[in-house]
């Protein structure tokens, strides 16, 4: 399995594109994307407006440095030579090979209710089990979603959840977004098995801007999983995806994602959920790859009794900076949130937990508990926690705990005295450290995440 995984993440296919935009971002390109997709005029106008916002906003001056990210060198739109199929048989062989090595078709057969696969800028495969289709569940890519559910898009697409005004990369995303996932779960429909989408970048200096829009209607339930990866090249690529989740009254959404971009990808991702009364959002967030990650999944607890649970894990090896954390806005009474975050850094890598809990005046009886831990495997690496609390109401319960430390010599000796090598002992300590997060993942992903981290440790400690 380890070999299979390693191969899956390093393999790259020769470029085979129907269209590759030249380097850099222009109004002409934005128009071209919209035209290629045959979009309604209002979407084009939104894209153009977002481009203006993008051009007017500065690069964030806080957090990891983005000075080596050259936005003029990125290819913003890459159309693979493949159409969106409902059958893996119709997917071109080289692309199918990649997804097969990543274990996607197998997972689909075994444990998933539906699968979407995106290669470069476009979705190349999408399929949903028949029984879910019959219940009215919609699971498709966002381009198709826009065509078939235009009214829902007008209302929910980058409006009340993630606005293009949020920050520079949200605006960039809104200008050049392509592909991604659209899910609508009708009232009181409970989708028992997870749906999954996998996003793969293959080209050098590519940009991927997939959009995920999930609408869980009143009383519905869904678990959606995203996986992402890209092979390694000399020059940087950019991922600026966007995830918007609307959790309506009494609905429950679990969103899990494991991102394993190549080590020169800038992963500047935006994820946000708006949760109505009695709704629950659960975030499971794993960040392993990338050169720099800036990702702060956010829950806006808008209705009474709304709840947000976040568990996150970040792993940073040589040259990597993982800046992640959870943001929660408690806007109403009796809202609650929990955060559990684990960061592992090795060989000069940096992890930092950057989070915010804000409780508004009037959000009485709200509760929040935050725990963020960092483990460093050597003296070269860094782990930081930067949790912020902004509380404007006195009748609330807020707690925060953080433990940051280096792997202990005494712990290693203890385990080695039981016959484990230093490497095995290190792996065991790391797997124990992340266990509270891993045990929340579906089994296959837990196994895969553990294997990935073991591989990373082997590569950096050998």
């Amino acid at each position: 399995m380890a070999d299979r995984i390693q191969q899956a993440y390093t393999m790259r296919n020769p470029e085979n594109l129907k269209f590759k935009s030249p380097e850099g971002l222009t109004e002409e390109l934005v128009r071209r994307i919209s035209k290629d997709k045959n979009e309604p005029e209002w979407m084009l106008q939104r894209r153009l407006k977002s481009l203006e916002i993008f051009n007017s906003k500065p690069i964030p001056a806080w957090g990891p440095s983005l000075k080596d990210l050259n936005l003029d060198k990125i290819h913003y739109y890459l159309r693979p030579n493949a159409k969106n199929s409902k059958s893996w048989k119709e997917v071109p062989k080289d692309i199918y090979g990649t997804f097969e090595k990543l274990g996607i078709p197998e997972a689909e057969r075994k444990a998933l209710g539906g699968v979407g696969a995106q290669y470069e800028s476009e979705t190349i495969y999408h399929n949903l089990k028949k029984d879910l289709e019959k219940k009215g569940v919609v699971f498709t890519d966002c381009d198709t979603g826009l065509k078939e559910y235009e009214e829902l898009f007008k209302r929910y697409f980058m409006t009340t959840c993630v606005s293009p005004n949020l920050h520079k990369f949200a605006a960039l995303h809104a200008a050049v977004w392509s592909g991604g996932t659209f899910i609508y779960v009708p009232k009181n429909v409970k989708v028992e098995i997870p749906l999954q989408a996998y996003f793969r970048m293959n080209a050098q200096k590519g940009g991927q801007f997939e959009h995920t829009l999930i609408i869980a209607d009143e009383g519905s339930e869904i678990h959606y999983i995203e996986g992402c990866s890209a092979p390694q090249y000399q020059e940087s690529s950019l991922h600026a995806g966007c995830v918007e989740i609307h959790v309506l009254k009494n609905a429950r959404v679990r969103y899990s994602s494991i991102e394993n971009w190549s080590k020169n990808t800038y992963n500047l991702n935006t994820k946000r959920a708006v949760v109505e009364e009695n709704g629950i959002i659960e975030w499971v967030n794993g960040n392993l790859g990338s050169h720099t990650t800036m990702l702060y999944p956010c829950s806006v607890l808008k209705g009474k009794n709304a709840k947000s649970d976040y568990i996150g894990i970040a792993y940073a090896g040589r040259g990597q900076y993982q800046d992640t954390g959870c943001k929660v806005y408690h806007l109403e009474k009796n809202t609650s949130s929990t955060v559990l975050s684990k960061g592992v850094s090795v060989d000069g890598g940096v992890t930092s937990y950057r989070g915010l809990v804000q409780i508004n005046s009037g959000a009485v009886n709200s509760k929040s508990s935050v725990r963020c831990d960092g483990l460093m495997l050597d003296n070269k690496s860094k782990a930081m926690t930067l949790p912020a609390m902004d509380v404007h109401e006195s009748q609330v319960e807020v707690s925060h705990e953080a433990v940051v430390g280096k792997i202990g010599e005494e712990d290693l000796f203890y385990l080695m005295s039981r016959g484990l090598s230093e490497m095995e002992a290190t792996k065991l300590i790391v797997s124990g450290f992340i266990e509270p997060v891993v045990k929340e993942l579906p089994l296959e992903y837990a196994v895969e995440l553990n294997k990935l981290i073991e591989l990373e440790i082997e590569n950096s400690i050998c």
Partner: protein
Amino acid sequence: MKSKKILEIKNLHVEVEGKEILKGLNLTLERGKINALMGPNGSGKSTLVNAIMGHPKYIVTKGQILFEGEDIINLSPDKRAKKGIFLSFQYPREISGVGVSKFLKTISKKLNPEFSLTDFKKNLKENSEILGISKEMNERYLNAGFSGGEKKKNEILQMLIMNPQLMMLDETDSGLDVDSLKTVAKGVNAAMGKDKCVFIITHYKRILEYVKPDKVLIMINGKIVLSGSGKLADELEKKGYEWIEED
């Protein structure tokens, strides 16, 4: 035929953070024997067992540690464990997120090339029963939040599962109530065999009533200064160490 000597230490000098603790220690341990090591605080007892196990902080500056005739000074702790050396820690480490039974399975696989899951499960069940350890206990994380007694029992469980040749117990009896002490002793006696050797560090003769020593060794200031039969422990309990130091 295995040699009778299981461990032989010659002129051992050990430093901890630049300070010499063991100053030319000689010691021979034999198979089939239970040995007790006693001595005042700071005499170097823990240093000795940690040096035998290969703790990186305990630096051997001179001398030899021969296990089954082979000098093990340059071996890492895991290689020593594979040869059959075990240390029950005075302060077992808490390893969060690693379940006890999963951990025991991992180390069994490491130590036993003919590992079988069925045998392991049977072994774990039997040995847990000896120590009065419940199934639920073995699903908890290794030592995390365990009481002092639970930690020590878990050390003995690890020992029973690993089935080592040389069993070193560093104050395993400290802080145990009488029932736990009896349980731990039962575990040690169950692990003992005619090819094996027990080496107990203790301050009290209490445990030696349940694990009967063939030999009691007294350590003072980095050296073994006296050895005798089990009766020596009774004498120490009455008279303390001063009479030896004066000699």
